[in-house]
């Protein structure tokens, strides 16, 4: 009986392992991420040049594709516009699973943050700058609650701000690239 139980457990574990390994390797060189697994370099789509657009159009965009240049990988991610700037969040940063899932956020915070965001098929060269505090947080939390938490009520906004302040959610501004960052690429 014990043998059968162990064999069943082994098959369940095998299914999980095969799923993760297959999807990870199947996506790693793709032009963009899958639903969960990172993809490779964002290749398709026009590269935006010139001044930044009015980012409020991202209010109608649920996910964007975000590529980190170092290491080269891309993932799907939420986006929030606030006061003319755009931000991306990374949640679950204090849990074990979250640390595995959101490894990119650590890489962005520790590296140069050079990134490319593909929004509605247009690629924008940006630089990820972590925002940990400041007046901007409330506006971002408001937008995050409106778009992704079913409404921008005071409680939802307060929860979002609390999550940022205690480090469970990291926020990055998708800022224009600085000349120093571009030169170091």
């Amino acid at each position, binding site marked *: 009986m014990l043998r059968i139980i162990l*064999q069943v457990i082994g098959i369940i574990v095998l299914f999980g392992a095969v799923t993760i390994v297959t999807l990870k390797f199947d996506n790693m060189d793709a032009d963009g991420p899958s639903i969960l697994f990172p993809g490779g370099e964002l290749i398709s789509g026009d590269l935006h040049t010139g001044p930044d657009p009015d980012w409020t159009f991202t209010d109608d965009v649920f996910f964007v594709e975000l590529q980190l240049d170092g290491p080269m990988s891309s993932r799907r991610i939420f986006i929030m516009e606030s006061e003319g700037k755009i931000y991306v969040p990374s949640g679950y940063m204090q849990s074990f699973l979250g640390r595995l899932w959101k490894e990119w956020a650590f890489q962005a915070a520790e590296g140069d943050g050079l990134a490319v965001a593909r929004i509605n098929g247009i690629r924008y060269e940006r630089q990820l700058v972590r925002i940990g505090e400041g007046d901007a947080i409330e506006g971002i939390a408001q937008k995050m609650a409106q778009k992704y938490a079913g409404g921008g009520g005071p409680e939802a906004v307060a929860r979002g701000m609390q999550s940022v302040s205690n480090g469970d959610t990291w926020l990055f501004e998708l800022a224009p690239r600085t000349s120093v960052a571009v030169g170091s690429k």
Partner: protein
Amino acid sequence: MKTKNYLILCAVIVVVWSGILMSVPAVSDIVEQVMIGFLSTYAT
């Protein structure tokens, strides 16, 4: 199940399941949706 048969079953699972995941996008999408739901629930 004898060890030999069990190992054959494991090999078949690896080949068939990875083939399905790579060749049928609808299946991999559903699997990823389930995984992201699991992570969203338990990665807190």
